[in-house]
């Protein structure tokens, strides 16, 4: 599904991987997260080879994950969901729930509620909060906007940028929503048929035509 992909992300960057449905973006993310085995090649994180490291160990090294479709635990409460994120990044102390609620105040109101009863936007917010509460070095988001109203999409992207600034978080996200890509990313990799077919440099991200080429080929 995914072959011969090489990408590099520097500390503090916000990088996106773009491409249409079914080009292997999710497979790539899962391989990166350690949920699928890497059959070839090497993954390093903070100068450490993590190719053979298991998913839970990778999380503890500081990779936060926002899965496709948000992946909140529907039968756990908002608080419990947040608590699940505290295992991420053993090197740094976890954030305080209050700090996270600051970004998404709605969650605080609903903290005793089951996550399955939240709206799509709130679930996305929860999923992101859950990942950042562990104070990760790298945040990986897999189509964070899926099933979310447009106004919330932009709120969420603003928050991610904010967090990126506040705690120096590196962000890698996979997306096909044009607006979000343009608004958030500093750099893009374009994917097709399981490999990287191009890189969109910082100055070109704003260029609608270039992006569109990769998204709709």
């Amino acid at each position, binding site marked *: *599904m*995914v072959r011969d992909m090489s990408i590099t992300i520097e500390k503090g960057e916000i990088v996106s991987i773009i491409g249409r449905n079914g080009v292997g973006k999710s*497979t790539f993310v899962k*391989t990166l997260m*350690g*949920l*699928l*085995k890497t*059959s070839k090649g090497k993954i390093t994180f903070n100068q450490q080879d993590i190719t053979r490291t*298991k*998913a839970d160990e990778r999380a503890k090294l500081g990779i936060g994950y926002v899965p496709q479709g948000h992946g909140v635990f529907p039968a756990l409460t908002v608080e419990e969901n947040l608590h699940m994120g505290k295992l991420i990044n053993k090197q740094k102390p976890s954030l305080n729930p209050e700090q996270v609620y600051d970004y998404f105040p709605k969650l605080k109101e609903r903290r005793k509620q089951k996550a399955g009863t939240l709206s799509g936007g709130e679930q996305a917010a929860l999923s992101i909060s859950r990942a950042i509460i562990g104070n990760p070095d790298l945040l990986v988001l897999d189509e964070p906007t899926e099933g979310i109203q447009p106004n919330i999409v932009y709120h969420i992207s603003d928050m991610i940028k904010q967090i990126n600034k506040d705690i120096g978080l590196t962000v890698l996200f996979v997306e096909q929503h044009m607006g979000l890509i343009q608004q958030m990313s500093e750099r893009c990799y374009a994917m097709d048929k399981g490999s990287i077919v191009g890189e969109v440099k910082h100055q070109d991200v704003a260029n609608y035509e270039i992006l569109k080429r990769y998204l709709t080929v």
Partner: protein
Amino acid sequence: MTLKTENVVAVLLFIGLFIYPLFVNPYQVMNLSYFLSMVFLSLSLALIWGYCGIFSFGQAVFFGVGGYFYAIFTMNSQLSTITPIGFILGILAGGVVAWILGYFMFYGGVNDVFVGLITLCLTLVLETFMGQTAGSEWKIGQVGLGGFNGINGIPTLQIGSLSLTGNNFYYFVLMILLIVFGLLKFLTHSKFGSSVIAIRENRDRTRLLGYNVPKIQSFVFAIGGALASLSGILYASWGSYITPSVFGLTSATIPVILVAAGGRKNFTASVIFTLLYYWFSQALSASGNQFALIILGLTLILAILFVPDGIVVALFNWCDHLFSRNKGKVKLEKGNLHEEKIS
């Protein structure tokens, strides 16, 4: 037919079974005819589980229904020439009971592990019920159900004046096995067979190709019931005896074990493994060795842990692999490595 180990083995097996009585004493023939009778039970599960993806714990139900039906029917009409009718009606009875149960489940949308659970409960109901029918009020016609002790003195099958015992019974069972085996092979290669496999692979998609899935499932379940019932009848005729323990948890589990450990998607494997298992467990029991059950248990554990596709199937693949290596014709194995899950 392609030249695969499985086919070669199947042919050799049947040839071997045909000439077997020439080389052994009558006891061994009779004993093997008992094992062969039990093969139908495994085949019934291999059909519905391996080919149609319906997991049933309830083949014991139909086995027992067949056995009891045959017993009650033939013992009520004192004529021994009536046994073939009892034989045929018994098979139908098993099929009908299975069809009714299948209808009740599949049209109600019960699938997967829940079929297993319903059938498990049903078999326990029957065991509990039949166990307490020792009283004389429990009678069908002139035949008392006999409670836990079961029914004794069931007439052996007789065709015309030919009583099916010893070698006769052996060849009778073997012929039926050959026919059933052939029919099953034919069935799975037929139009109907491909729709059955389609249901196993993807129930929803098959529905959307215009197949009435519950109907096909009920039908396959009914055939499985008839086969299990056939097994029960042969068993009752072999030992002239049937008891409620045929409905017990052990009896319900054994076909599952045989089919799972032998290789469930393969009829030949089910036949071979059933024969092996019965022979092996009997040999252990006859040895009087107190470690018999431990050895049997460990064998099953090891088999599933290290040969998850089934022991016999693994052997087939291994042989295929050996012979085809030189030709350099290596088929890609199922599933993409990239998508292999950890843990």
